């Protein structure tokens, strides 16, 4: 269990009370540059994001498809670092103390920085939860347990390959919410099948009281609606970072309309999630 209550816990309790679903918006920190990225993130709550998932760029994002790989590399090329990402969160918190922020990434930059130090600084910066793709329950000592002790949620991915025998191990130290990966595959690839996802969400819910949010392969407001209707929320990432990529000039610099375009798309997706 996470030590203390996070903004994620509060937000999901609120959403449940209002009978609403969560729209979780993913973007990569520092893509295509720090200022543009900060402007997008600052605008996401107003665009309807209930939770913001910020990707910590890594050179070797093994679970990600081409869109998020490319966004990571754009961010790294623009000079984004782990410390820079924490700084972005700190600045966001100056104007927003309620929207939960989840950092998503791969373990190596955190390991290199020092897991205990990272947890302490992330908490202080205003981070609420972590998703670290390459840390399964077998490696909980590395970061999951320090994060829980340090007051951060540790959000685990459950996947179509996580069977009933394994599910309790996966859920054991999970907090905040459970992220159900809708397909066996990488981000931004095949579209999820609603019936299969519904069965798996129900299966997970029979093991836990945590909210279950579904991601991978959700690209349109309609898909977001479909998936959110059978879960507690939907994560959308690849299509948003693709919108970043589509609003760059030939040199890779942000066009003036980039932020507005991405936020417009986010608001359409948010509307899809809670369409009645």
């Amino acid at each position, binding site marked *: 269990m996470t030590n203390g209550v996070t903004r994620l816990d509060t937000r999901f309790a609120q959403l449940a009370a209002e009978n609403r679903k969560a729209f979780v918006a993913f973007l990569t920190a520092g893509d295509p540059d720090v200022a543009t990225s900060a402007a997008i993130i600052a605008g996401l709550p107003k665009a309807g994001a209930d939770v913001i998932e910020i990707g910590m760029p*890594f*050179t*070797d*994002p*093994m*679970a990600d*498809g*081409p869109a998020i*790989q490319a966004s990571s590399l754009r961010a*790294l090329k623009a000079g984004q*670092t*782990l*410390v820079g990402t924490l700084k972005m969160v700190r600045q966001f918190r100056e104007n927003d103390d309620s929207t939960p922020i989840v950092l998503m990434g*791969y*373990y*190596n*930059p*955190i*390991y*290199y*920085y020092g897991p205990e130090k990272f947890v302490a600084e992330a908490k202080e910066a205003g981070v609420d939860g972590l998703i670290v*793709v*390459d*840390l*399964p329950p*077998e*490696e909980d000592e590395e970061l999951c347990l320090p994060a829980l002790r340090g007051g951060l949620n540790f959000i*685990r*991915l*459950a*996947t*179509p*390959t*996580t*069977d009933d025998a*394994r599910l309790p191990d*996966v859920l054991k130290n999970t907090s905040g919410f459970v992220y159900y*990966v809708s*397909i*066996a*595959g*990488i981000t931004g*690839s*095949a579209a999820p099948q609603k019936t299969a996802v519904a069965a798996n969400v129900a299966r997970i819910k029979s093991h836990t009281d945590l909210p279950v949010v579904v991601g991978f392969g959700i690209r349109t407001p309609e898909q977001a609606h479909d998936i959110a209707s059978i879960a507690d929320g939907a994560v959308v990432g690849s299509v948003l970072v693709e919108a970043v990529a589509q609003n760059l000039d030939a040199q890779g610099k942000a066009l003036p309309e980039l932020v507005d375009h991405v936020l417009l798309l986010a608001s359409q997706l948010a509307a899809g999630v809670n369409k009645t």
Partner: protein
Amino acid sequence: MDGTNSYREGPDENGRFGLYGGRFVAETLMPLILDLEKAYGTAQQDPAFDAELVDLQTHYVGRPSPLYFAERLTEHYGGAKVYLKRDELNHTGSHKINNCLGQILLAKRMGKTRIIAETGAGQHGVAVATVAARFGLPCTVFMGATDIERQKPNVFRMKLLGADVRPVTSGAGTLKDAMNEALRDWVANVDNTFYIIGTVAGPHPYPAMVRDFQSIIGKETKVQMQEREGRLPDTLVACIGGGSNAMGLFHPFLDDKDVDIIGVEAGGLGLETPDHAASLAGGKPGVLHGNRTYLLQDDDGQIIEGHSISAGLDYPGIGPEHAFLRDSGRVTYVSATDKEALEAFQLITRLEGIIPALEPSHALAYVGKIAPKLPKDHLLVMNMCGRGDKDVFAVAEHLNIDL
């Protein structure tokens, strides 16, 4: 390690060699590597598995590979007696086939119907394509676009063998990127696909399993040296990218304390430059491709592309057991530069009539540094882990010769 004096007991039940190794993979893959660990454990207990493997090693690969006394090299150096373990004479031209046969037999036992692999120099890719053809399984090999360009003969061999060679353009288009792409494919094809990793890296049980399949190199060497010289060798030398040929030679000797063991990393343009692939000499512990090990990385924990003249060595990591053996001091790790390897390549070709791959040319370059200073009764074994056919075009280019 724990309470005993053995260096050969790793990994522990969590796949750790001391600090290194482990299972740092996405949840989607976790059930698969647990299945693999179980299936490998069962196979190890089954005499029929071993019997089939031995039969193929003997009649298909041509094992045991000779332990050859390199008389003219020895004369040239004027010191230690230099023996070459001739794994370049294996079917497909390198040690890679040893591991591929073991893994494809396992794939068959597990009922898998599709094979994937990554490759750098193409030696592993060719070995995988070969066993896939032999066992009638479709096979996809991921290879960096840069490597495809510098290893054309191997690319064509894989295609002839029926493999689908997929160029990988992400990153620098080399081995690391090919491995990322193979992992992505595996995640998307979990039901039917077996991933044949080519080196002693990746999530547990791969480092231990690949080591076990390669250990035949060291086991044969022990017996052969006993027959030739009536004793153990004094020094072992092998090149290291991920480190599978080296681990195969070293592992059976780790507890023979009088045997000096030396691994040679790719020094590229020199360790003082950023252009090398010496993860132990120039890297720091980190987590990539399922295991913790020494990695070439920057101050933000981002992975740096390795550089080497040899496409088989320019990986920014190294097998976790090598990381453990380095920290424990049991094995000494050094490096040789592109230039030194190229010189050694030409030397052995002229003196022994053996055209080596650029990978073991690194090992030979280091042999050339120590052999002259060692006494004449000193027995040195170098692992000649691959032949150089695949490299002749690249070497010609480096020597400014137009073919």
